[in-house]
């Protein structure tokens, strides 16, 4: 059992490191100085290395979850088996003696002919999901839904050459909608979000938000 003093020391050292690192990297953004720049680049480089090492933790977590699904004979155990086998194949061909790592022909083939098409297939579902989400929103019969429908119709018609030729005002209306109400709304959201980001950063920099000490 750790004493209160030991816990305080354990927390204060990482806290001091985090505050100093944050201050140095922030100062480097505002100030031009060779030494500050070198230290800042070094710290950012360390972050990349730590993130890469953490990927091993991710691999262990995935393996643990899917091995447990197989052992407990869950309904999705076939998919878990596929995932684990694929991970093993990629790792084996990537680290095998004489392998060219991520550029190994087998690894490249798996990525080019299995992973990329599957990724594109999943992403292409978005088109149908957009339609069904829009349909559900418009079925709600609320003021916001009506506004959304009207705006969508005006923007769509404004983009179509035939509609713009037949009724030039629709194109001007579309441009006005994009330039004023939409830009104003987006800027409001971005301004609010930026203040939220500043608040989160300041809390972390002064050591009042300590996710890294959890």
């Amino acid at each position, binding site marked *: 059992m750790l004493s209160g003093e030991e816990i305080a020391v354990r927390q204060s050292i990482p806290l001091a490191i985090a505050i100093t690192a944050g201050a140095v990297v922030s100062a480097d953004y505002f100030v031009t100085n060779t030494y500050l720049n070198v230290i800042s680049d070094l710290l950012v480089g360390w972050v990349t290395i730590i993130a890469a090492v953490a990927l091993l933790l991710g691999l262990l977590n*995935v393996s643990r979850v899917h091995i447990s699904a197989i052992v407990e004979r869950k309904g999705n155990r076939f998919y878990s088996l596929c995932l684990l086998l694929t991970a093993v194949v990629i790792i084996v061909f990537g680290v095998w003696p004489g392998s060219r790592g991520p550029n190994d022909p087998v690894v490249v083939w798996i990525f080019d002919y299995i992973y990329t098409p599957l990724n594109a297939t999943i992403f292409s579902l978005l088109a149908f999901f957009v339609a069904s989400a829009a349909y559900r929103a418009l079925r709600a019969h609320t003021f916001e839904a009506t506004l959304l429908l009207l705006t969508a119709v005006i923007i769509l018609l404004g983009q179509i050459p035939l509609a713009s030729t037949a009724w030039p005002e629709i194109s001007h209306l579309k441009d006005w909608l994009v330039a004023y109400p939409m830009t104003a709304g987006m800027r409001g959201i971005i301004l609010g979000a930026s203040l939220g980001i500043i608040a989160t950063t300041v809390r972390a920099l002064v050591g009042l938000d300590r*996710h*890294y000490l959890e």
Partner: protein
Amino acid sequence: MLEQLIVDWHLDGTKLVALGLLFSFLLFFFLALSALRGGRSPHLRPIRAFDGLERLIEASSESAQLIHCSLGTASLVSRFTAEVLAGLTMLRALAKRAVASRFPLVVTTLDPVSLAASQGILARAGSTLAEGQVGKGEEARFVAPEPVSYAAGIMGLLNREHPLGNVIVGGLGDEYLLMGEVGAREGIYQVVGTSAPQVLPFVVTSADEYLLGEEMFAAGAYVEKNRAHLGSLLAQDWTRELIIGIIIGLVILRTAGLL
């Protein structure tokens, strides 16, 4: 050598404005903290999403049904760091309630660094409050390192495990709709927080409640009633008022032909 060590203060206009904003915020933040220590209780305007979240927690506590918490489709080590930190704050609040009320909670991420942070948060919530259904680290899952693969994994999770609620707070891209639409079709109660305006239409059409822009960073103040978060919320309001004042002042000066 000594000359090189001396900081060369070359500040362009943009950086000067950013620095001014940062120092104004810091000043307001410490003023707000001091006011809160002095016993001032800030008025928090009602936000529907936090009321909805509260109802979801109560329903989950009663039925012991799963809540899924997602940290979004961005990494902690990216330009979405603050958004992912907001997601971790939401997770911390949910984990404490999950342990206290004994409802199951699962958190998923596409980022191994966030995974480590999530495991820490769950373990701490479990060890400081009570022996509950969180805290063993197994409830934090790394799904996939790419946004689309992660979204596909979450589609499967929502279909298979039918959680009562789906709370997504973090950096989001277009692939959000893959998860959001499946959640909506499955009838899962969804609370989603985003700061990205381009994802907004997807969130509005698929989520039951949503946290837009700055609202997503307010979870610590609304759910946890954390003093630092309350202080930063007050500072946000004061800084916003300062910015609005500056904008109005500049408009008047420009209109009067003085700028």
